[in-house]
């Protein structure tokens, strides 16, 4: 009788443990967003005559939601260019950025930032702010249920002088033309 109890207890324990590990494998929202951020760079072509040897500057603006989730991106290569992470603190500092991620904390500064980016040309703007692409952004995260997806403004991309791979467009929830 005692043996049976022991067996039951161990079974319950091992079950709960395996469930815990399964939970651990489910990635957090920003983990997915960080991966997406990197993947966006792989399907976008910068047409302003950059060479492979130049690093690809990824700027994170606003209070940092990623924590150290972006750390693995440092030094990785996208289309042959090495990724560089920058955390500019003022708008003026975004000069030279190839990718600009705008955090949710900057919802009031979006227009200013976008204007700055548009004037600079060749900046892929990414944000998880709602309606980001309507405001003139290029790629915006959207959440459908539990799944993170994205939408793209082709118009804004063309204005910024960027070419977006059709494969990426196929995957977009919505494409603004």
């Amino acid at each position, binding site marked *: 009788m005692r043996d049976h109890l022991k067996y039951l207890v161990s079974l319950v324990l091992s079950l709960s443990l395996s469930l815990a590990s399964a939970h651990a494998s489910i990635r957090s929202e920003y983990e*997915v967003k960080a*991966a997406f951020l990197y*993947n966006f760079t*792989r399907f976008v072509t910068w047409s302003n005559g950059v060479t492979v040897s130049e690093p690809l500057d990824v700027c994170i603006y606003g209070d940092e939601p990623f924590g150290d989730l972006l750390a693995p991106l440092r030094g990785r*290569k996208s289309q042959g260019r090495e990724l560089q992470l920058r955390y500019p603190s003022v708008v003026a500092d975004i000069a030279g950025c190839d990718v600009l991620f705008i955090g949710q904390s900057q919802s009031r500064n979006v227009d200013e930032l976008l204007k700055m980016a548009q004037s600079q040309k060749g900046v892929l703007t990414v944000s998880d702010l709602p309606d980001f692409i309507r405001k003139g952004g290029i790629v915006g995260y959207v959440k459908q249920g539990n799944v993170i997806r*994205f939408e793209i403004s082709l118009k804004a991309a063309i204005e910024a002088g960027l070419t977006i791979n059709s*494969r*990426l467009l*196929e*995957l977009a929830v919505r494409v603004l033309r």
Partner: protein
Amino acid sequence: MIGRRRYWRLKTKLLFLTLFTSALGIALVCASLIFVENQNYRKQLESELHVIAGILAEQSAAALVFEDNQQLSSIIASLKRIDTIRQACVYDQQGNVMTSLSGRQQGQCPSVGPSLEIGFVGDAYRLLMPVTLDNEVVGQLFLASHLEVLRGHIRTFVFVASGIGAVILIALVFLALRLQRIVSEPILKLSETAERIAQDHDYSIRAPVSGTDELGRLGNTFNEMISTIQQQNRRILESRDSLERIVEARTSELSMANRELEAFSYSVSHDLRQPLRAVEGFGQALEEDCGDQLNDVGKDYLKRIRAASVRMAGLIDGLLILSRVSRQSMENQTIDLSQLLEEITEELQGISDEVPTEILIQPGMWIVGDSRMLRVAFQNLLANAWKYSAKEEKRVVQVVSRREGRWVSVEVRDNGVGFDMRYIDKLFVAFNRLHTPSEFGGTGIGLATVYRVVRRHHGDISATSQLGEGASFVVKLPVAEDQG
């Protein structure tokens, strides 16, 4: 198997040879075609699948990195139109199944790893293609295609190839049946001709010859040999005929001469008697009637005349006997020689002188021959033994017989005066005498008669002697077949 084939007919052998070789060739060609076709089809299938997989991998790269399962499913769903694809799975970087082709009877997607078998496995072709993005592997694409189409294709190919092979083979059977005659016909004709010649002994038959190849040469050589045999046969027959003619002619000539000679010698002997009897008769009459009118010289002459006439009568008798033993037909029978010799010696002892005589005749001697002739012969031999041993103190006459292979020899030995071996050549010739009439009386015909009798019995006679030591005459007669 090969042993049995040896008894096949030439035609069968040739047909077998041709058909076996061509069937083997056709089979090999078919087999290699099938093999090559199989390889080609596999390669084609492989490359097709690789192209499909490549396109799919390229299409699904973005969806993979953005983990868009919906998009992946729709990409993979395009494979539904390809019937041969049995299974399609997409894995992410970690090897987890992202999506798989639905609506097909299939097992679970196999787990990616070194244990995953790639290529032609069982009845499927499996392919695992990495999905790359900027040279970075972002996932894997697995495709499995069943090989039923390949199997069906190869099966059809095998059927068609065997069908064509069979048709070709049937055509070859007809062709070989016709073509084998080129080789077999001359050989068969040659063999038939040889058999006919051997059966009929007709050497005028010739084998038909066509062409100048080895068979043609064989036929020509055969014909030449046959004509050589024919010529030689003709020559042999001709020479045999001429020989026969010659022999016939010679035989008739000889027999005529022989007959003439015998008739002559008979008539001579016969006719000579007549005047001799007159001489003897009137001699006797003269002695009886006019004896007292003759003086001693006259009486002596008369006595000599009468003695000469008696000797001449003996000579004529001998000649008559000689001619008779030459002419007489032979009646062969088994003769008790011992008894015959006993009779002769009794006769001889009856007319004999006073010399004590010891006669040793081996008992139980049997010979085969004409009894009258043999009696004459042995009478002569014994009489000679008697005569030439008359001057001894004691006469010893011995007759012994020996068997020597196919011959039986009878030896007559005496202890008389013997003769000089230098004159052995003249011993058996008529009218040749080794002693003077004053020593021993005689006609000189006796041994010639003996010789003639022995020769007519296909035998032989020989004599050995030493002067004063007696003589030995050996008569050799052939043993008759039925005589033990």
